[in-house]
């Protein structure tokens, strides 16, 4: 095993250990791995399968069912743009169009500089002050095209 595979195995094992004995530990385990590594590396799946007595197909099935889990690294910043009705009522369709154009990517894609990944989300619970955008764990309300551009520019400058 390569040194990176050894390191990965250590992470996976310590995560599984920390959720030992829990009912339905797979979701918390997947979340923890993704929190630590930004994604679920394909090599980690057989490690989880072995340690948790699950088949690789089962783990794949679970990963692909949920929108949150990703098998590949995301950009430095994840932008979740709300596509649901309250935000639509406040112009999120136009904002969505603008965002894709400004970043030059579609949903599920990452900008070539690796700074941004754009994802759709269906409601962020901020529906009185729409449109809503989640940048990593930070929420933004009443987002206009200008506000979007400002946020992007700030993050680009920080880089």
């Amino acid at each position: 095993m390569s040194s990176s595979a050894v390191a990965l195995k250590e992470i996976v094992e310590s995560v599984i250990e920390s959720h030992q004995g829990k009912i339905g530990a797979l979701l918390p385990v997947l979340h923890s791995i993704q929190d630590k590594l930004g994604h679920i590396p394909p090599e980690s799946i057989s490690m989880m399968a072995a340690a948790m007595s699950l088949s690789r197909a089962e783990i794949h099935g679970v990963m692909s069912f949920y929108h949150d889990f990703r098998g590949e690294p995301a950009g430095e910043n994840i932008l979740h743009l709300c596509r649901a009705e309250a935000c639509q009522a406040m112009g999120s369709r136009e904002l969505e169009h603008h965002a894709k154009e400004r970043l030059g990517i579609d949903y599920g894609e990452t900008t070539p500089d690796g700074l941004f990944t754009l994802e759709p989300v269906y409601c962020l619970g901020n529906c009185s002050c729409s449109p809503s955008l989640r940048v990593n764990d930070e929420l933004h309300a009443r987002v206009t095209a200008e506000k979007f551009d400002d946020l992007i520019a700030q993050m680009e400058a920080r880089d």
Partner: protein
Amino acid sequence: MAIRVFVPRDATACALGADAVAKLIREGAAGRGLDVEVIRNGSRGAFWLEPMVEVETDSGRLAFGPVGAADVPGLFEAGFPGEAQHPLALGLVDGISWLARQQRLTFVRAGLIDPVSLEDYQSLRGYVGLARALEMAPQAIVDEVKESGLRGRGGAAFPTGIKWQTVLDTVADQKYIVCNADEGDSGTFADRLLMEADPYQMIEGMTIAGLAVGATEGYIYLRSEYPHCRKVLSEALSRAEQAGFLGTGICGSNRDFSIDLRIGAGAYICGEETSLLDSLEGKRGLIRFKPPLPAIKGLMGLPTVVNNVLSLGAISTILAEGAAHYRDFGTGRSRGTLTVQLAGNIKRGGLVELPFGATLRELVEDYGGGTASGRPVRAIQVGGPLGTYLPQSQWDVALDYEALAEIGGMLGHGGIVVFDDSVDLAQQARFAMEFCAVESCGKCTPCRIGSVRGVEVIDRIVANEERAFNLEVLDDLCDTMVEGSLCAMGGLTPYPVRSAIKHFPEDFNR
């Protein structure tokens, strides 16, 4: 003594800059040598006034809002935190009519307290219900819940006491309490607001549920889209545990109850209780066939209470104040209060809690003040993404479960999403199908495939390709989905679609 200033830590308030405002107030006060204590309270749900800053005085709390970071220096210059003459000064909070006219039962503490302070919670009758429940026999607790007339607030409005009776009556070594905090419906945020403003209410409710049915383990299934909420809940749970309100021997009794906070992974369908249970078991969130009911075979095949956040919150009030207190708030079969969320294109959006009986028009016009854009309201979607679009002729409907059902609508979780006259109902119908396609659990063909076909057919109708024929195809497709779907995802998606076609035909005929 320090002057107490409150700046909400609620997600919407933060999205509007509350963190920066809190920081600037601390710095501004320090710079001026003022003795100010900034407390991060929850929101009262008047989101149109957020960030709303409150200052405690002898005659009550003075409010300022909406306060942006740029307003803070000007506020200090005008005399803040003293009685400041400032355009953002709203006077006493209790005098803000949008709030004063409400009758807060579930949200009575929201915004008043530091959400994670047990002391604050207990100073306002928190944990009174649990103390009482600890003295009661399980059947007596269940009877009290039955008498209150509480119906589940997650959408299906099933009587909570009857559900608990089933779990109590089912013999098993282990039973579970599951709090459904998946709040997936767009246009809703009442669960989030309660959890971020007054989390112990629901935690106490879960504990009482455990005592009532004989469960020692509880799970909160919180959607991953709520990171702020997650922070508040984890903090509240660990404090409750440290103080002996959770864990072994709660409150010095010989009863145990613990709660594990679990995070969803971005799947709308996991709000449905059986899908949620599969997800908690670490599986894909597929809908289960019912029966067996989760009350009999739930988590890990064992008897399980699954209740919504607001239902469990109401439990602490019912036990603290008695069943009659809760029941007397309602009308007919809708007991307790109505909590609605004013969302979308609305001038004064937020959470409104009232006795049942108000009409949709009263809410949108009196409380909501019409649209944010200033244009006329054209359509209102009530009850989340599976709820119908109501045209003007239906806005006098009373907002209760039965009255809405009579016109083919549903109250659901109480989301009210307002659209102005720029809305295109054909696009809204298309979105309903698209959402179903994205979020279907995939178990039944009419839902999984029908929704994809639905999007295509609506596109053809809009493009005027064989329009009359395709409208018929869409109608058939809706029938198939209604009849052939195992759950409300596929079964109700046709409702918003059909209401759009029925009430706004011109949008399909351009």
